[in-house]
């Protein structure tokens, strides 16, 4: 074992701030559109109205925690249908597998809220302080009026964005127009203010100050992704066989041996993660594509072909270096592994859609009362009790008629009711106790147990559901 005679390096180091330079290009343009689309969706979605009839919420997307309902346009999910949520989570998981194995860290680079909000925060920063060089100057400057004014303005704007972020979040959980008024008149529930406060602070800190450190130190997703990528996964890479040896001085001696890279640092200066893509694939790269834009711009200017930095797979890297043509993008994306992911993803999705369309808007669950299993009445009649839950999942008041499959032995009645018709309000659940009685001397009264089928039929329609249950007799 050999060890250095120097004192061990510090375990901690001051974070080097990153000042990404502005860049123009096709990836940057696409990212702006994605940012506008996703933020727009996030802020506008709770304000879309959707008519569900009287006494029902008219918000298109609503997570009603108190009423235990989830509304999504024409779809309404009840708590007992939570498997839909489980299914959606499975789809989200498989979807991430699919995208990661095909396109690498495309989620991180384009769609992750951390990336999107950081992009927005950097935009604000640039708008207040100027581009990279101006920001660097301001950063190095001693505190004076200008620095206080610019930093103050920047932080206030960040804070407002943070508040808008947290503010929009709570609108998903309550009627947005009502809540907005209540928020400003101080009538909203404490939990709403608390949620806004927490999300304001996390947005402010994550987007303004933590930025790339969230991706590098806090987020588990990059580590998981690393296990899902293979040599066919598209990532951003540097064509070092074309670029090296790099050099600035094109007019000096020996310049003819230099590669295409003029070492202008454009790719490093635009990188929001503060890395040098020319070091090759690395953990901190979120594959946002901005270095591609920056390099292409420079290549155009010096009259070299584009693509010194570009999307490629690890296998391309090897074959291109050897002078062979790379595989096409489609061949990278459409391969057995991604096909299998797609198939699983589609299967779950189709299953959910089918389940969504064949589900009835009425539901009944029957649990026989087991303590005691049966009661003998004065005239020898054997009676069983059942706790029956009825769910009216339609937006109108309906009459549920309870019945049993034709059975000469059994009579049905409902505790506290004159008949077996239960009226349920729109979107309501009711629990009733149903009695089945077998008169003395009948087979059902004498038998240990017999099966019976309970029906719930919507009055005046063909809609009905049934539930199999048992009738316990004396067992003699």
């Amino acid at each position, binding site marked *: 074992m050999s060890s250095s005679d120097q004192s061990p390096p510090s375990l*901690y180091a001051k974070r080097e701030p990153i000042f990404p330079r502005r860049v123009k290009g096709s990836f940057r343009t696409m990212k702006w559109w994605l940012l506008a689309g996703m933020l727009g969706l996030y802020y506008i979605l709770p304000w879309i109205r959707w008519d569900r009839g009287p006494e029902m919420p008219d918000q298109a997307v609503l997570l009603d925690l108190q009423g235990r309902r989830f509304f999504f346009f024409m779809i309404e999910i009840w708590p007992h249908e939570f498997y839909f949520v489980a299914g959606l989570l499975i789809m989200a998981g498989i979807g991430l597998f699919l995208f990661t194995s095909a396109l690498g860290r495309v989620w991180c680079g384009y769609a992750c809220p951390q990336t999107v909000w950081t992009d927005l925060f950097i935009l604000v920063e640039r708008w207040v302080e100027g581009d990279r060089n101006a920001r660097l100057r301001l950063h190095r400057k001693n505190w004076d009026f200008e620095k206080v004014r610019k930093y103050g303005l920047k932080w206030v704007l960040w804070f407002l964005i943070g508040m808008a972020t947290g503010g929009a979040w709570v609108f998903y959980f309550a009627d947005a127009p009502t809540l907005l008024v209540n928020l400003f008149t101080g009538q909203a529930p404490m939990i709403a203010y608390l949620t806004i406060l927490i999300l304001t602070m996390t947005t402010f800190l994550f987007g303004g100050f933590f930025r790339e450190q969230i991706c590098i130190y806090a987020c588990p997703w990059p580590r998981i992704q690393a296990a899902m990528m293979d040599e066919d996964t598209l990532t951003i890479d540097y064509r070092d066989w074309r670029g090296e040896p790099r050099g600035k001085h094109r007019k000096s001696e020996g310049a003819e041996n230099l590669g295409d890279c003029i070492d202008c640092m454009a790719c490093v200066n635009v990188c929001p993660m503060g890395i*040098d893509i020319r070091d090759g694939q690395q953990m901190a790269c979120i594959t946002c594509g901005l270095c591609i834009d920056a390099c292409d711009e420079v290549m155009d200017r010096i009259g070299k072909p584009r693509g010194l930095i570009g999307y490629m797979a690890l296998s391309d890297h090897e074959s291109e270096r050897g002078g062979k043509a790379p595989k096409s993008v489609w061949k990278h994306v459409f391969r057995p592994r991604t096909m299998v992911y797609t198939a699983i993803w589609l299967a779950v999705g189709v299953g959910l859609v089918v389940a969504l369309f064949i589900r009835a808007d009425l539901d009944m669950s029957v649990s026989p009362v087991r303590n005691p299993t049966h009661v*003998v009445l004065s005239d020898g009649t054997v009676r069983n009790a059942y706790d029956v839950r009825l769910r009216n999942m339609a937006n109108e008041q309906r009459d549920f008629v309870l019945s049993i499959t034709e059975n000469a032995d059994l009579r049905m009645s409902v505790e506290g009711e004159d008949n077996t018709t239960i009226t349920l309000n729109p979107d309501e659940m009711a629990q009733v106790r149903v009695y089945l009685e077998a008169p003395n001397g009948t087979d059902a009264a004498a038998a240990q147990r017999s099966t019976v089928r309970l029906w719930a039929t919507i009055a005046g329609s063909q809609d009905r559901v049934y539930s199999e249950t048992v009738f316990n007799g004396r067992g003699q």
Partner: protein
Amino acid sequence: MADNSKKSANHQKGDPSTTGHSWDGIEEFDNPMPRWWVWIFILCVIWSVGYWIVYPAWPGINKATSGVLGYSSRSEVVKEIAEFEARHDVLFAQILETEPGELANDEDLHRFAVNAGASVFAAQCSQCHGAGGAGVQAGGFPNLLDDDWLWGGTQDDIVQTVAYGIRNEDHLDARYSEMPAFGRDELLSEEEIQQATHFVLSLSGSDHDAQLAAAGAEVYDYNCSSCHGVEGEGDTFLGAPALNDQIWLYGGSQETVYETIYYSRFGVMPGFDGRLREAEIRAVAAYVHQLGGGE
């Protein structure tokens, strides 16, 4: 990242600098954590000091330090229970204002009463009558689910029974009756008791000796019918069970019926007046009434 690089022989271009550690040629990259993470750790330590001062923290011999806020989870629970009860007091007051028999007309109030009654029943009644209200025949604890009532099954009857109890010597309003012990006290001969037993069994159509039963009709008429009725229909005013139905309080075998006549039997039930609030008694009566047998 800090560039305090100590480049080693096999360090490649583009690699982060190393810590300078090398074990059998295996080197460690120098990727120091951001320093502000240490500051968060220190802030947490400072926060914890404030926490010790404000909240209960340090264990002592008898109790922990109580903190300047005087917070305790127990007092929190006491407060929440008080809030909960204050909310329910309104509803209990409404129950008191409603005649027991009318309670079912107000659907919401009735639902509240039934649910409140269910908890009272679980705590106070289930020990004898069973968690499901089915009673225990071996102990003579009546089944509350059937349509047979010893002392009446209207809401008012049940309220009365729950409040004052059965054969409860502590309260003058308690229901009271006693069956004579015909054998032990030598009121009837052995033969007469046998005859009466078979007559009682015949009333409900149970297995019996027709000859003995015929002879028992007269014994029954003289000794039993004043309480249990000429036809064995019972009398809820006297708490005399009906004998002509399929429900037996203590069991319907010949031995059991004989024993009942010989030694006599009667159950007791404590009164809950004073132990439960009036509204709770009404609530538990509402609960029992809707178990399936309410009149």
